[in-house]
């Protein structure tokens, strides 16, 4: 059962959200995780750190992001009023920069000169290369070889920003393998390297600190909606791959029992096909990348390849806090297919003049179904986590416009 008082205070001292999370890592990483945790716990109460981060979010990334009322989308769907939290208007075009700025300030505070990161679609890689350039730190980004081909333009962006991009040829050559390789780099260069992880995954303290850096989304949204409507929304919807935009949006609402929250996973070609990335909807518990969480795995405990038209959701694990929120029942997790997400791209583009990222389109596709079961006096907020410019080629191929 959800327990608002304790849910908001998680993880516990060992890094657990109920049965999920922890630190399942080689011993060699333990000193680095302890150092990171200590630095973060100190920084988050430090006025200087907080004001620096606030300044960067405001003057560099462009926060506060607007909460836009989607009048024509609302009218088209005919149900609850729909609001969009515009994370797409951040510098680099997505919510990823919130976390990248938080972690790079932490790295700087810890005196680390070398930043490593993993990336799937390239959005987190671009965000990391961006902040590394701004703070003058060396940056190496690991990216599955398969993804470097699918997202050639982002590879170029990272290089233009001065980062080194290393194609990963092991395993399935996608995001999970990029994380494996980043972890191997960290194991090797643990003393002077900061691993700037891109989602609420990995060993403790990452799921906690990435969530805290992304929680600015939900804090702003809650305040903006209260100011505008003098009430809370009925539904909050966000897409979930690793789950960083979703947890950032949901966390400040956890204590608001009137708010229903829905995380939307990538259903790929359909949950019955095994070609999807719906870890919470159809996965089982296990350990991957340092955390106990839900996973896509076979009967022998080998991790399976995920599939989604959206490279950013194409991951066979999920943040441990989402696993906890699923089991506690506080958040509902649903999935939509590739085809539904593509239709949602078209819908939002045509009704609101906003081309959403394919990841975000999953949240919109679910919202379209949800709206039809709601009444006009209700309100739905969708986390518009990123803009779709990076996906235009894929969308063009898939939609045959």
């Amino acid at each position, binding site marked *: 059962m959800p327990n608002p008082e304790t849910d908001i205070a998680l993880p516990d001292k060992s890094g657990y959200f109920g049965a999920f999370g922890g630190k399942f*890592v080689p*011993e060699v990483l333990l000193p680095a995780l302890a150092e990171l945790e200590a630095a973060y716990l100190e920084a988050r109460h430090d006025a200087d750190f907080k004001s620096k981060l606030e300044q960067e979010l405001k003057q560099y990334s462009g926060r506060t992001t607007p909460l836009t009322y989607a009048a024509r989308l609302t009218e088209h769907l005919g149900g609850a009023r729909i609001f969009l939290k515009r994370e797409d208007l951040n510098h680099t075009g997505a919510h990823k920069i919130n976390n990248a700025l938080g972690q790079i300030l932490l790295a700087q505070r810890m005196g680390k000169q070398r930043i490593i990161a993993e990336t799937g679609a390239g959005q987190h890689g671009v965000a990391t290369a961006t902040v590394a350039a701004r703070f003058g730190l060396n940056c190496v980004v690991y990216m599955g070889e398969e993804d470097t081909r699918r997202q050639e333009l982002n590879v170029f962006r990272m290089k233009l920003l001065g980062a080194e991009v290393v194609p990963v040829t092991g395993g399935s050559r996608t995001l999970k393998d990029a994380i494996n390789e980043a972890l191997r780099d960290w194991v090797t260069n643990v003393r002077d390297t900061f691993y700037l992880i891109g989602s609420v995954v990995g060993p403790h303290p990452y799921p906690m600190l990435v969530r805290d850096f992304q929680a600015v989304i939900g804090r702003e949204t809650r305040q903006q909606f209260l100011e505008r409507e003098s009430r809370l929304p009925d539904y909050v919807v966000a897409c979930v791959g690793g789950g960083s935009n979703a947890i950032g949006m949901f966390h400040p609402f956890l204590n608001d029992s009137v708010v229903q929250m829905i995380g939307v996973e990538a259903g790929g070609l359909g949950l019955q096909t095994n070609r999807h990335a719906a870890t919470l909807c159809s996965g089982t518990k296990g350990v*991957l990348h340092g955390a106990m969480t839900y996973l896509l795995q076979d009967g022998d405990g080998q*991790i399976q390849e995920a599939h989604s038209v959206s490279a950013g959701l194409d991951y066979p694990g999920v943040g441990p806090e989402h696993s906890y929120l699923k089991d506690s029942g506080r958040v509902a997790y649903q999935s939509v297919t590739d085809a539904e997400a593509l239709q949602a791209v078209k819908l939002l583009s045509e009704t609101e003049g906003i081309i959403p990222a394919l990841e975000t389109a999953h949240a919109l596709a679910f919202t379209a179904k949800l709206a039809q079961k709601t009444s006009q006096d209700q309100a739905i907020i969708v986390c518009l986590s990123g803009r779709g410019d990076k996906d235009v080629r894929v969308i063009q191929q898939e939609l045959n416009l």
Partner: protein
Amino acid sequence: MSRLANLIRDRMAQRKKLLSVFLTAGYPELESLPQLVDIVADSGADFVEIGIPFSDPIADGPVIQKSSQVALANGIDLRRIIEQISEIRKTNDIPIVLMGYLNPMLRYGLRDFVTDAQGCGVDGFIIPDLIPEEYERLQPAFPPSSPGVNFLVSPNTPLARAKAIADLTHDFVYCVSVTGVTGARDGIATETVAFLQSIRQVVSRPYFVGFGISSAQDAARLAGLSDGVIVGSAIIRILDRTEPMAARLGTVGDYVSGLKSALEGLSDGNC
């Protein structure tokens, strides 16, 4: 006392250094393991570590990663590994330590895995992604009568923690020679020597060095600073060659004999 504990006690009483060899189960072929264990045992390995392949081996370098991928493609899984060890045990009494990442064990059922491993004659476990803090939560799956977990320490482990790990570990401490992943390297890093010297000061349990050992000379030097050495990637690299299998197996045997001779040379008091 277990086969492994007896072996370590006897060797140390004779002031001999131990040699352990790592083999990836299911590699190079699905059924290679029993023959390979016989060869390395006959060539002088004191105990063997059998690697359980995993799709996402974050502590392993390219050589063992590749062997794991090939082994999984060959169709290896935990049930087959346990069957193959039962087969080995019919004729070979060499101590066997299973080394693998946690997830396949959890999926099998950790308690069932420990029971079945014990049933087929396994003498211990190494789980590179299981630190003592997480082990505590899983400890009920390892009853006192079962084979136990042997923990790792690395050059950046604080000495007080290394001491606590040594107190907790079942039969030996696995010292990772450098901060890094598995894989044969040339030469010995300065940090390795300093690390092993400080381990000697605080750890009273047996401790072996692994990760990065390839030449007999390096093996002998590291054995001089510890109770023994563990060699993995260098063996897998031989098995990865394109020569006929018989030639590769012969080279593995010669290589292990060479390591053994280098270590035997030490035990006469050279170090």
